């Protein structure tokens, strides 16, 4: 069953067209990695999936909700979609625990006590149980990103979006974050992962999409795309990054 269905998606910033008509179907439990050179539109595509960016044309249907429909409650839809950012975007004025508890409590999904229990469980899951009372400024990059993931999971989403989640990290911290994402994949979470980590994409992805200049150039299983790319543009890109 299709979890995310994108048809004819276009996005322009002023006169600059960043997405030039994308069609993508993503199934429940599928892990899709999006790769491609900088400026190819990967992040914009991801941000259209929870409408952080407005759609210029086309339709995006997530979990049965048509994002183009003005009557759809976007705040409701977004609770189904967790998002992890390149720069973490943790709330610096709150402790780690408060960061995670904010949404469940404000959205009245859980009582404060229940939210605390859930938050501690999530922290334990990302290996940071001892950091509950720390402030984001006291954490390393890798720890921040793991808190950010725990924060997204707190509203119990069934889709996770990762926007270059390891790009801002020191190399020795990339592994700990990838491990958390890998665990989520193993649990059957539907995920769209924009990444520059080709090894990770090859290992974890069910499907890899290669984007360039606002279009999907080629897609396939990791074996197909990395082992036997059909398009010259794909071959050129992979020859530079592998």
């Amino acid at each position, binding site marked *: 069953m299709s979890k995310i269905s994108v048809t004819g998606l276009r996005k322009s910033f002023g006169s600059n067209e960043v997405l030039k008509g994308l069609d993508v179907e993503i199934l429940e439990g599928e892990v899709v990695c999006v790769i491609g050179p900088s400026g190819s539109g990967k992040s914009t595509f991801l941000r259209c999936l*929870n409408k*952080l960016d407005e759609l210029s044309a086309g339709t995006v249907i997530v979990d049965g909700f048509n994002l183009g429909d003005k009557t759809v409650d976007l*705040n*409701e*839809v*977004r*609770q189904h*979609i*967790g*998002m992890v*950012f390149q*720069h973490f*975007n*943790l*709330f*610096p*004025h709150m402790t780690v625990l408060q960061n995670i508890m*904010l*949404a469940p409590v*404000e*959205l009245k999904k859980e009582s404060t006590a229940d939210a605390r229990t859930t938050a501690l469980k999530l922290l334990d899951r990302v290996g940071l149980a001892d950091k509950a009372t720390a402030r984001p400024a006291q954490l390393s990059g890798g720890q921040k990103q793991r808190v*950010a993931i725990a*924060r*997204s999971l707190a*509203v119990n989403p069934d889709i996770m979006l990762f926007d270059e989640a390891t790009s801002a990290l020191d190399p020795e911290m990339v592994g700990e974050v990838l491990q958390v994402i890998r665990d989520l994949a193993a649990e059957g979470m539907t995920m769209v992962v924009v990444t520059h980590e080709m090894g990770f994409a090859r290992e974890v992805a069910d499907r890899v999409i290669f984007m360039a200049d606002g279009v999907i150039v080629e897609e396939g299983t990791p074996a197909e795309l990395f082992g036997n790319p059909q398009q010259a543009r794909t071959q050129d890109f992979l020859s530079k990054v592998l």
Partner: protein
Amino acid sequence: MRKITEFRSGKLAVAVTALLALAGGFVGISAAAASQPQAQPNTAVTGETYIIGTDTTFAPFEYRKDGELTGIDMDLIRDIAKNQGFTVEIKSLGFDAALQALQSNQVDGVIAGMSITDERKLIFDFSDPYFDSGVQMAVAEDNTKITGYADLAGETVVAKRGSEGETFANSIKDEYGFTVKALADSATMYDDVKAGNSVAVFDDYPVLAYGISQNNGLKSVTEKEQGSSYGFAVNKGQNPELLAAFNTGLAELKSNGEYQAILDSYLEQPAPVAASGFFGLLSDSLPALMKGLGLTLLATALSIVIALVLGVLFGFFKVSESRVLRGIASVYVSIFRGTPLLVQAFFFYFGLPQLTGQSIDVLTAGVLTLSLNAGAYMTEIVRGGIQSVDPGQTEAGRSLGLGYVTTMRRVVLPQAVKIMTPSFINQFVMTLKDTSLLAVIGFAELTYQGQQIYAANFRTGETLLIVAALYFIVINLLTMLSNKLDKRFNK
């Protein structure tokens, strides 16, 4: 209808008023100004209370002694009121301000050692003359070079703006080849001469004589010029019964000898001066200055609270997605940031009543001015604070499913407030200092009280030192307190 066209210092105020009215969209209100209530002629004055405007200091006609307004004018108007059975409420506004207040019907009459001139007769109705004045020149005590008008060639002299002295100085300046500079009050003029910025002052002789008797550091070197007479004035066509009562009362005081007694008490025997030391001045002036400081703090507190509300409101307008709201906030900010605070104060106190026919008390006008002005700066502080929070913070909040308001309240604002706080403290201090500008509309705050004191005792430097020290102490104490609160709550 009032005629406000020909009066010199009135012109500027009227022009500014009109300009601001257009900018502020007050045009509709100006129509209401035409239908003002006209006072009934021949109404008995008995039991009535009249508001009388006067100069801040024009000794010996009006000045403060131990905090109380006294002088020839004050004794005269009070005795005439008693004689005619009405009550007066004196407002010490400054000469220009008193005349503008009269034009805008903020006061019913003005007695301020004002010469009766043809120019003024066009816009005011004058009483019978109550004092024959004349202009005299004075120079610094140690000046031996200037002994007559002929020695003024190439020099600068001062005269009081809009006064007989200025008119006279201008009438002979080409003949003797000097330049005339106009200042607002006698104390400032005398200081200007003592400081050597100008070599001589032209002032009304009784004022000059009184000042010299108070050791103001000047001496007169020429005879007095035959000058015009002083009169009590009401706005053209207004309060004729008050004018009539003044004339009747004056005639009675003259015939029963009271009039001469008043003049003698001020001109024959000027009050002996026992110059107290600095600490004597401090203890003498402190009660009045503390009263002024109280009003300064009151105006600051009221203004800053209103400004904060305005700033938050318009600040949110500025970051909203609605073009209309953003436009409203931008217009508000550009009007109040784009015009001087002093002009705004004049507008709200003198201009607005002329447009609406509704008089406004000086505290209200002052707080209105300061809060609208500070509100414009607060708006920019709030906008800047909100916009300086990383947009990623909003995106993180929204991607969790939180609404705009919740994201603002829980994520953006706590961070923005922290960024804004130092600017808020800064604006608070600015507003406190800006209250001193309200002295020009006669708001009796700290600076005004200081002016009153040195205008009577001519000890400008020492008095201003005390005033400045009071501002310094209060501002630094409040800044320390604010910073402490900032540290405590914005950890």
